[in-house]
C-alpha cells in the first residue's frame, strides 16, 4: 500500500496546528468557553440533505454527529453563555475535493447577539488568520441572497414561481431537475451560477429563502417578503460557514423536525427521530443568540492555496 503516509506535507500539518491554536486563542481572549461535546449520540439531525453515519455502541443504535449543534444548544439552555466547539463532525456520502466524510468544524454561539454582529466577528477572525500569512488585507463584502441571485439570474428567488425556477434548473443542468423542490432548485442554481460570480475575499450572503431556514428564525425583509435569518460565508467563492439567528421556540422547532421527518419518509431516506433532549432543553428556555459553523479544513485550504481537502488533513478517508 502506497497510502500509509499522510496526504499532507509536514509543513502543512504545522500550518494546521498553528491555525487550531490561533482559533482557540481568539476565543479564549474573548472569554468564549470551549466545550468538547460528544461526537457520538443516540440521536442525530433530521435534515433532509444531511446523512448521519450510524454507530452501534453496546449493539444499540447511535450516530456520529454531523455537527455539535444540538449538544451546544442544550448547554446554552443550561446557561453556559458564549461557547465554542472545535472538533470533528461526520457526514455520510460526502467526498470530493471539498468534502471528506470526517472533517473539522468550528462552531460557536454568541448570546444576545444577532446574525449581523456575528458576521462582524467572523470577519475579524478570518482577517486575523489571514493577516498572519499575508500583508494583503482581506476584501470583505456583504450582500442579501436576493440581490446576489437576481444580479446573476435576473429573477427574484423569493417571489419567482416554482415552475419558472424548475425551468431554469433544468436549463442549467439536466432533465432530472424537472420535478425538484423549490429549495433544491435554488441550491442548484446558486451553486452552479451564482457562486462562481461571487467576488474574491470574504463574502457574507444573508437573508436566505424562507424554504431554506433550517434552524434559523424568519423575518420580513425590506420588500416585505418572508426570509430566513440565515447567512452563509464564502471565501474566494468557496462555501466556508453557515450561521443563524437561532430559532429558540420549542413549538416551531418541533414543527420543523416533523416537516423534515415527513420529507424523509416521502424520499425513502433513513428515518431519524427528533432529538428529545433538544426539545426538552428548548422547553426549559434558550437564550436569544446567533451561532455559526465553519469548515476548518476549507479555511486551511484557502490559507495554503490547496485545491483538495485531502492535502490539508492528516489522513483523508482514502487513506484511512
Amino acid at each position: 500500500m502506497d497510502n500509509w503516509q499522510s496526504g499532507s506535507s509536514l509543513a502543512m500539518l504545522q500550518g494546521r496546528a498553528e491555525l487550531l491554536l490561533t482559533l482557540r486563542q481568539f476565543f479564549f481572549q474573548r472569554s468564549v468557553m470551549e466545550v468538547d461535546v460528544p461526537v457520538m449520540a443516540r440521536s442525530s439531525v433530521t435534515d433532509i440533505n444531511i446523512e448521519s453515519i450510524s454507530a452501534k455502541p453496546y449493539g444499540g443504535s447511535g450516530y456520529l454527529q454531523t455537527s455539535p449543534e444540538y449538544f451546544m444548544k442544550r448547554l446554552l439552555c443550561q446557561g453556559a453563555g458564549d461557547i465554542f466547539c472545535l472538533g470533528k463532525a461526520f457526514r455520510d456520502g460526502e467526498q470530493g475535493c471539498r468534502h471528506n466524510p470526517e472533517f473539522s468544524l468550528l462552531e460557536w454561539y454568541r448570546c444576545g447577539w444577532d446574525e449581523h454582529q456575528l458576521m462582524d466577528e467572523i470577519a475579524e477572525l478570518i482577517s486575523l488568520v489571514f493577516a498572519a500569512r499575508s500583508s494583503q488585507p482581506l476584501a470583505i463584502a456583504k450582500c442579501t441572497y436576493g440581490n446576489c441571485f437576481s444580479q446573476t439570474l435576473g429573477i427574484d428567488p423569493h417571489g419567482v414561481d416554482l415552475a419558472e425556477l424548475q425551468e431554469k434548473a433544468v436549463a442549467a443542468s439536466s432533465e432530472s431537475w424537472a420535478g425538484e423542490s423549490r429549495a433544491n432548485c435554488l441550491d442548484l442554481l446558486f451553486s452552479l451560477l451564482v457562486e462562481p460570480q461571487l467576488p474574491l475575499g470574504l463574502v457574507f450572503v444573508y437573508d436566505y429563502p424562507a424554504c431554506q431556514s433550517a434552524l434559523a428564525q424568519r423575518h420580513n425583509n425590506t420588500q416585505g417578503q418572508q426570509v430566513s435569518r440565515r447567512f452563509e460565508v464564502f471565501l474566494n467563492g468557496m462555501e466556508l460557514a453557515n450561521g443563524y439567528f437561532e430559532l429558540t421556540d420549542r413549538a416551531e422547532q418541533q414543527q420543523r423536525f416533523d416537516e423534515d421527518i415527513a420529507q424523509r419518509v416521502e424520499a425513502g431516506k433513513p428515518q431519524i427521530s427528533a432529538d428529545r433532549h433538544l426539545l426538552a432543553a428548548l422547553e426549559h428556555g434558550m437564550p436569544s443568540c446567533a451561532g455559526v459553523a465553519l469548515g476548518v479544513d476549507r479555511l486551511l485550504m484557502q490559507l495554503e492555496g490547496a485545491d483538495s481537502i485531502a492535502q490539508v488533513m492528516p489522513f483523508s478517508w482514502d487513506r484511512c
Partner: protein
Amino acid sequence: MANYSTNEFRSGLKLMLDGDPCSILENEFVKPGKGQAFNRVKLRNLKTGRVLEKTFKSGESLEGADVMDMDMQYLYNDGDFWYFMEPESFEQHQATENAVGEALQWLSEQDICVVTLYNGSPLSVVPPNHVELEIVETDPGLRGDTAQGGSKPAKLVTGATVKVPLFLDQGDVVKVDTRTGEYQGRVKDA
C-alpha cells in the same frame, strides 16, 4: 450491463448517455452544506468525440456501456473495411473508416493498436504511440545541415505528413509520436 451510481463515477468509466456510449473525463462532487448533493460530470461521447458537461443528482445512476478496449493487430484494408485481429483468439473484426478515423494515417500492417469495441464492433482505433515510417515524398535533403535549423514537411508511406529536419531524404525512416504527430528521430539502418 450494470448500472453505476454517481458515487462510483470515476474518470475512464464508460456509460450510456442519451443512447450513446460515453467515457467520464472528470467528476466533481458538489454539495451546499444544507442542500442536495450533485455531481458535475465531464464526458466524452465515444461516437462523436464531443465533450459534454452534465449535472446529475447524487445517487442517480446510469447504465454502463458495453465498451471494451482491446489490443489488436492491424491486418489489412480491403478498400471498404480495415481488419484487426485479436492476438490470442485470432478472431477478426472489421472496422469502418469512421471508426478508424485519424488512426488511418499512421497504420502499417501488423501494428498493435487499441481497438475500442462497442457491443462487439470496433467503435474507435488508437494507433501505437510511436510508429516508424518511411518518407515517400519531401524536398531534397541539404547536406551539412545535420542538427539545428529549420524543418520541412515530409509525406510518410501511410499518408501522414510530418515536419522533419532539413537533412532527411526520401527513403529515410523516421520515428513519430502519433499522439502529437511530432517527429521523434531518424531510425538508422532501416
